[in-house]
């Protein structure tokens, strides 16, 4: 076997550089570092609700995920609870939110209908990009939902994570912070 030591290999003409031929396996050395292609799943972020978040009856509220697990591009704002797609990072994003609703305000069975939504920019409750809802349920104490989905986003798009909890009249509910029961997150997908 012979070795060629050069600092760069490039095409001579056209636009394609071909390595190997039919039946050839092109394999980097086991200790080599390969970069510049393949990509990684960033931007990526995840944040969780750090303390009880009281929800008013039947009112959409942003999930107050104020404690970050990671935020590779500093694109998630843990004060406004919004993710802004960084410049040059448009594409397909895997988005998710989890919320654990707990009956409160003097009742241990006040949960009725719960809903999660992921909205982009000016989307509303009737046009949200992703939604999960449970309807016509009565008397719940403790319910957990997870909303997941893929959204095509462009640079500067703003992603919002909403929760709504309808409870029996006179009571309220809250999102539980215990052991990351309530959180939001997302990451850019490669190869799509």
């Amino acid at each position, binding site marked *: 076997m012979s070795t060629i030591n050069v600092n760069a290999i490039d095409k001579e003409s056209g636009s394609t550089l071909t390595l190997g031929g039919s039946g050839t396996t092109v394999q980097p050395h086991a200790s080599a570092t390969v970069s510049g292609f393949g990509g990684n799943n960033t931007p990526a972020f995840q944040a969780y609700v750090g303390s009880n978040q009281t929800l008013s009856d*039947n009112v*959409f*509220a942003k999930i107050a995920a104020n404690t970050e697990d990671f935020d590779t591009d500093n694109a998630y704002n843990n004060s406004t609870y919004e993710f802004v797609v960084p410049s040059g990072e448009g594409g397909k994003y895997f988005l998710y939110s989890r919320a654990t609703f707990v009956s409160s305000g003097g009742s241990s069975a006040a949960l009725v209908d719960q809903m999660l939504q992921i909205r982009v920019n000016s989307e*509303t*409750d009737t046009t949200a990009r992703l939604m999960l809802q449970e309807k016509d349920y009565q008397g719940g104490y403790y319910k957990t939902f997870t909303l997941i989905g893929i959204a095509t986003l462009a640079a500067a798009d703003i992603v919002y994570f909403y929760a709504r909890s309808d409870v029996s009249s006179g009571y309220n509910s809250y999102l539980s912070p215990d052991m990351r029961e309530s959180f939001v997150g997302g990451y850019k997908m490669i190869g799509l």
Partner: protein
Amino acid sequence: MITNIGLKQLGFSKEDYALQDDGDGTFIARWSSDQPQPSVTAIETAHAEWQANYEAEQIQAEANKASAISKLEALGLTDAEIKALSGGL
């Protein structure tokens, strides 16, 4: 303040509207009813009416319970027997 209870007290269903709070208080983000959107004052007044009715019902329920226990005691039932009948009240 805009509340779900106030709107329900006015006769609207939750399909008629969407309430939202982005940190500056609850507002009506969508109004879909064929009826005009009520004022904040009207919603607050309706909420207060509901609250008054709710508290009156609570007071009446307590009074009914006390009255029932008193009548049972007059019939000679013991506290344990009354508790057994009432499911632990």
